[in-house]
């Protein structure tokens, strides 16, 4: 029973990690339909930002790095959008190959800059270790990630529904032509969307330094999971991504507990495939009057 209870926070924390890495994608993939395979490398860029900042921020680098990584990864995303992706709008397959190529290039750049081996990011001492409540162990790093994911969701929700820019973003996503007719500069909105989406990947990267490896291949470990969450949650739907992340996290933790890690992966994939057969549009559907 105790073991069963222990799996609950584990599932939630896996869900929080999934959510954090998928949030950025709900923007670029969900809102804009750009399949950005280089998203994982923006996560990596965030992690390396924390590594770089250690030199003067010491052990608190992880905290300092959160906003810096947002800017660094965001600017990388913006650059990618401006130089390459905008020439490929409406050609998802070409974008897929293009961004995959970019992701390989970025991995190699990281390898040349920082070396192939993993680097060490020291966690703040107050994030090492964990506490026990009601017989359930919770590592502080996991709680930090959970809180960070929740804050990010709140911030995104506020931005999308309460600010002018956010509403414009939604308008462009729901009906680009109509938004354009109404005087919204869709190209500028695209840039902003890409900046925020990529920036969120950077934030995720910083958080991941607390629990995982920091190396050139970092992004490749998370990119598939991130796409799974966004697709299962329904494209562009924030609440869909939140629910999908936690459902997948819990499913993963319990299946792994009763079998093993390889089987848990298989089961999660199988469930998603089955689910998408029933609801190809994901958990939440965006209803609009668009004709496609």
């Amino acid at each position, binding site marked *: 029973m105790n073991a069963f209870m222990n799996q609950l926070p584990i599932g939630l924390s896996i869900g929080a*990690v999934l959510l954090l890495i998928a949030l950025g994608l709900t923007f670029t993939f969900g809102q804009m339909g750009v399949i950005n395979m280089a998203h994982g490398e923006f996560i990596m860029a965030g992690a390396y930002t924390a590594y770089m900042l250690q030199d003067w921020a010491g052990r608190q680098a992880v905290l300092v790095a959160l906003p810096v990584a947002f800017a660094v990864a965001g600017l990388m995303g913006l650059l990618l959008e401006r130089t390459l992706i905008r020439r490929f709008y409406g050609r998802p*397959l070409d974008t897929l190959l293009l961004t995959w190529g970019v992701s390989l290039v970025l991995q190699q750049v990281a390898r040349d800059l920082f070396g192939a081996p993993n680097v060490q990011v020291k966690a703040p001492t107050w994030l090492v270790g*964990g506490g026990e409540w009601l017989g359930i162990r919770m*590592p502080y790093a996991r709680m930090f990630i959970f809180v960070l994911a929740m804050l990010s969701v709140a911030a995104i929700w506020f931005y999308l529904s309460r600010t002018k820019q956010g509403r414009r973003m939604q308008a462009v996503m729901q009906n680009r032509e109509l938004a354009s007719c109404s005087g919204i500069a869709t190209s500028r909105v695209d840039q902003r969307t890409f900046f925020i989406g990529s920036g969120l990947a950077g934030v995720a990267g910083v958080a991941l330094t607390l629990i995982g*490896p920091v190396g050139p291949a970092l992004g*490749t470990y998370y990119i598939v999971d991130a796409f799974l969450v966004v697709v299962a949650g329904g494209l562009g739907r924030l609440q869909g991504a939140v629910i999908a992340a936690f459902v997948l996290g819990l499913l*993963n933790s319990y299946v792994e*507990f009763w079998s093993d*890690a390889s089987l848990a992966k298989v089961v999660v994939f199988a469930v998603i495939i089955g689910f998408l057969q029933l609801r190809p549009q994901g958990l939440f559907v965006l209803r609009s009057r668009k004709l496609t």
Partner: protein
Amino acid sequence: MRIISFGRRAARLAAVSLAVALATTACASDESTSKGSAGADTSGDTVKVGVLHSLSGTMSISEVTVKNSVLMAIDEINAKGGVMGKKVQPVVEDGASDWPTFAEKAQKLISGDKVAVTFGGWTSASRKAMLPVFEKNKQLLFYPVQYEGLETSPYIFYTGATTNQQIVPGLDYLKAQGKKKIFLVGSDYVFPRTANKIIKKYAAANGMEVVGEEYTPLGHTEYSTLINKVTQAKPDAVFNTLNGDSNVAFFKQLRSTGISAADMPVLSVSVAEEEVRGIGPDYLAGQPVAWNYYQTTEGARNTEFVAAYKAKYGADKVTSDPMEAGYNSVYLWKAAVEKAQSFDPEAVKKACDGVSIDAPEGKVTIDGATQHVYKTARIGVVQPDGLIKEVWNSGAPIKPDPYLKDYPWAKDL
């Protein structure tokens, strides 16, 4: 919906690219069979050797350093006049952490570059993929990493530890520490699964109990569930055969549960100095590891090796067991070639028995019957500065016994 039609198109695209990839590999192997065994070209005043490691992908974290030390050995040898008067010219290829690629690149080195010998491989999967290529072409491979044993090939020299030089001494150490209940954690591929088979036999014969056995896919980064299982099983120690980046995630997440090395040591066989740096000594200090060489191993030859490596690749670099084994490989090959007075693989094989060099880890000698080397087993403990301090060694080099023939408990493996 657009997304669906896109999905189908993507699937079709993937299928087409897969078909193309398959066709190219098929062509490659056709070519290799038609060419048959290609002799090395040693007519000029240089001799080419292949260096085949993953320079990209998940294994590059470890393999790049071995490539570096192999190239350093080649440079040193060239500076002293080469091998039998010929300069050694390395041809570096990237195995890309992908096992079929290792086989293709091995074939390319043999029939395209006509190398006299190849140094390379890390994972057992890559070695198993290359094995038929070297056997078919009757060419030599030097494999530098500790592995799961139960294998000999007439064309492979194993310069890393086999099981009785690393895993068995590691178990002896745990037993001597009074650890009775052990939990096995490993990556899901051939080395950990075979190693664990051996560990279970050992445990059964030595009054130890295996209270759990878990595998995760290579590159797995989520260990909280597995750690929960470990804490539920309450083992005295964990035997860790995880490989690659997974180790970072595992140790970071283990540390945050508050379990220390004193409560429950995690003995690792794939975590060396280089990996310690990537994980962070914070998370690893006090944990035991089993190898044959550490950067801190005493001896003039090692001082020289460490200094040369730092001078060449940077003062902040560390040296590790597989790097040292890769470095030794080149010198062992040179010594065998000089003894044979020929670059011909058959002549080198014939001459190899008893060939010995003064290596950073001490004296290493080739055992001609198994083409493995005699190595001293060493247990070390990770220090807060990231280096590893030796706490036990086997005293003398242990004779390689890949099939564990001299161990009664391993009879029906």
